[in-house]
């Protein structure tokens, strides 16, 4: 079978980084260590593992960062090469059931007993054994050489990773379950903050998901969102943000909503919680400007190495917390909550384009420019690939 494969090739990695710097994100796919090539299907890693046929697989911001050569070196020891990327996966079992994969490769998938402390509490996203056990290192399916990934026709999944897709979700909605679970996990950090004024930076898949999840699950009082493009602004509004403005007006909108004064660019009050769904140095700096002293910043977008002035973080006693993936929430399993939210909000429309695998360069470029092309989520459609062959 043919799949997209990411290999450890330092020169290509550097070339794609250069290309993405010069020509923008997604431009380096041709030069990057990713290629569409023939591979064999590996053996199942052990008991409880299944081979699944991929139907749709999304292109995520973290995939783009990897292809652009911009992801942090932090991940080097918790991925294994070569790997088939793709962790937002809708697939079919041998029996024909539609499933989505919860991609974190935690203790249970690695046959590790006893489970580490976070896994034993259901917080698999915090698993302490991502580099050990029966599998090669890999924080998720799509970053591990043992399991394959969603950017190929077949993927291997442990039974603990598999969630059946309810009939009321289309394939397009199902492929959003994984990213929406990330958003739900982040948004639920606002639980218990009734009446809070919440700021959301970024209106890509994650940002829109956070807005949807906040309005679905959290009784916050006001959601103020910054969205760059008109279609993002429209969607943010539809999904529950009360105030949606362009990035240049964001600070003013939060200032007004929080009846804040200003000194320089800093709000004297500001948002109770800010969700940074971008993860760049400028978005983190902006989050620090608009979050009230003593408030919280939730990092949702995957950051890389950044340069940020942390003086306000210190002086304003702001709490910064990461929000990675999903697991078990006080309201239940995050994937289940995401499915519930997707059905309630009709989020399938976020899928803007589908590409066959062999057009991966185009697909990656489109995903990187999705906002500017009136889109949100770009996915690979593997069934099309199979029928083409």
């Amino acid at each position, binding site marked *: 079978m043919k799949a997209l494969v990411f290999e450890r090739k330092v020169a290509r990695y550097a070339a794609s980084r250069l290309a993405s710097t010069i020509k923008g994100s997604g431009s380096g796919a041709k030069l990057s260590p990713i290629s569409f090539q023939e591979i064999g299907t590996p053996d199942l890693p052990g008991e409880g593992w299944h081979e699944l046929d991929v139907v749709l697989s999304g292109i995520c911001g973290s995939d783009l960062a990897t292809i652009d050569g911009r992801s942090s070196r932090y991940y080097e020891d918790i991925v294994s090469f070569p790997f088939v990327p793709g962790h937002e996966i809708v697939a079919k079992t041998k029996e024909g059931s539609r499933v989505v994969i919860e991609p974190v490769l935690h203790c249970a998938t690695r046959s590790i007993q006893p489970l580490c402390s976070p896994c034993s509490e259901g917080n698999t996203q915090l698993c302490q054994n991502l580099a050990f056990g029966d599998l090669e290192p890999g924080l998720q399916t799509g970053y591990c050489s043992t399991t394959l990934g969603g950017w190929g026709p077949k993927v291997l999944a442990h039974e603990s990773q598999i969630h059946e897709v309810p009939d009321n979700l289309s394939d397009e909605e199902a492929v959003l379950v994984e990213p929406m679970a990330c958003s739900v996990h982040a948004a639920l950090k606002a639980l218990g903050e009734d009446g809070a004024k919440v700021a959301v930076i970024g209106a890509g898949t994650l940002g829109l998901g956070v807005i949807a999840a906040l309005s679905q699950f959290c009784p916050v009082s006001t959601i103020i969102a910054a969205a760059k493009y008109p279609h993002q602004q429209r969607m943010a509004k539809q999904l529950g943000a009360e*105030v949606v*403005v*362009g990035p240049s*007006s964001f600070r*003013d*909108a939060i*200032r*007004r909503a929080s*009846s*804040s*004064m*200003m000194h320089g660019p800093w709000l004297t009050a500001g948002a109770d919680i800010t969700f940074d769904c971008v993860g760049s140095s400028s978005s983190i700096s902006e989050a620090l400007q608009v979050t009230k002293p003593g408030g919280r910043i939730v990092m949702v977008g995957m950051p890389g190495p950044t340069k940020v002035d942390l003086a306000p973080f210190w002086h304003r006693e702001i709490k910064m917390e990461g929000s990675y993936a999903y697991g078990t929430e006080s309201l239940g399993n995050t994937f289940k909550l995401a499915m519930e939210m997707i059905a309630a909000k009709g989020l399938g429309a976020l899928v803007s384009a589908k590409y066959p695998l062999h057009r991966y360069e185009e697909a990656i470029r489109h995903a990187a420019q999705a906002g500017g092309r009136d889109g949100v989520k770009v996915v690979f459609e593997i069934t099309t690939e199979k029928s083409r062959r």
Partner: protein
Amino acid sequence: MPRPGFVLETDKSTPPTMFWNGEGFRMEKLPSGSRVIYAPEPLKPLDDADASIQQALLNPAGDMPPLPELLKPGMRLTIAFDDVSLPLPPMKRPDNRQRVIEAVLEMAARAGVDDVVLIAALALHRRMTENELRHALGDRVYDSFAPHGLLTQHDAEDPDAIVHIGKTEHGEDVELNRRAAESDLIVYVNINLVAMDGGHKSVGTGLASYKSIKHHHNVKTMTHSKSFMDQERSELHSSNWRMGRFLKDAGVKIFQIETTLNTDTFPKEFAFLQKREWEWKLRDRVSYMGVSKALDRTPPRVARSIFNSVLSPHQMTSVQAGEVEAVHKITTENVYRQQLVEVEGQTDIFTMGLPYIGPYNVNSILNPILVACMGLGYFFNLYRGKPLVRQGGVLIMTHPTPWAFNPVHHPSYIDFFDQVLSETTDPLVIEAKYEESFATDPWYRHLYRTGHAYHGVHPFYMWYWCSHALEHLSRVIVVGGDPRSVKRLGFHPATTLGDALEIASDVVGRNPSISHFHAPPLMIADVK
């Protein structure tokens, strides 16, 4: 003898008509049969303005003794004056306010009045700068009062400086500047540029608070003012008059001094702006070409600063003093004498060229909200009788309408444009949903009180000024405007006048009547 206003009916031989276009101009060929309405020529000014002022102060109108009889040693005298929003453009020195205030101060000094305070009647406008105050009052007055803290600017948000006088029979709160309210006499010094100014609006609005002003600056009142230039048919004025009479009954004593100006609006270098195009001499054509070409090559910021330095040569045509209503009656007649132009019947399409300046952007930027207000709030309302354009007609205006704001003067405008007009342009919805939060915003309040910012609620009032026109018109088209700004305002952008007429044809058909309002100089269309 100055010629009265004139309505020209164009034919094929009519030269192109000049349209103001912000900090520039456009020459447009109007279809044959269009009407062009020209302002009356400037009236002859008073021969001796200072003598006329003395005369007015000594021979007041209405039930009011001459000013010297009101001035006693030991009394508290407050002199309030119109702010930087008048006149337009700012006039060459000496400003009417300087002439009048110097005369009043001289009489006060002669009478031994020591406790004199000057107050710029800002209402909810921005504070004036030192230069602007010096320009309005003259250096002598400024230097005598400002260093001693006796030249103040009304602060509608200072709870200690505002006093609640009571409520009118309509339940309208009447609040007033404490110093003024507790004075033995308020002398108000006005410049009447248009018929809307002056009268009870001077003290009742200029020295009032938001709580008071909101009773007449609201959508209902604005849509029931037809027009603002006709006091008897203006709900805005009815409310102001109720408040003014309430103040009088409460014992607040006002000696009103109103002055009017002629329409000699632009200096010699821009003489062509005041002439009818077919009467342009070679010199006018050369001036026009020179100025236009130079402006075409000038960055907008520089062009703005060139125009902001223009001082108008207009001169005083009348001065009257005394009891507020009696004074204002004479003033209004004098304004009408200068500005009324008789126009027969309404039109399907009303065209206008918007200049660079309005009351709220002196030394600033005519931002998109002010563009809307200039067109729909002011020029549309420069009528008496009935609107120049018929109900359901189309308004076409020319202005670049850049997405540009002065953040010092108009901070709440920026947020209004970004956060309110992006949601709705319906004045009633805007008023109900957003007004209070802007009006009470602590940051805008801080900037209004300590900087040079308009009050947080001010952009709302600009939009309410438009509400009569918005209700009356079926379409508003902006020629040459930034399409993004124009669309945000809820209007239609067009590249050329031809395109605009094409867009308008959906509403008014292929052979509409067209009337062009050739202002400034300012005028009032007396529509029969």
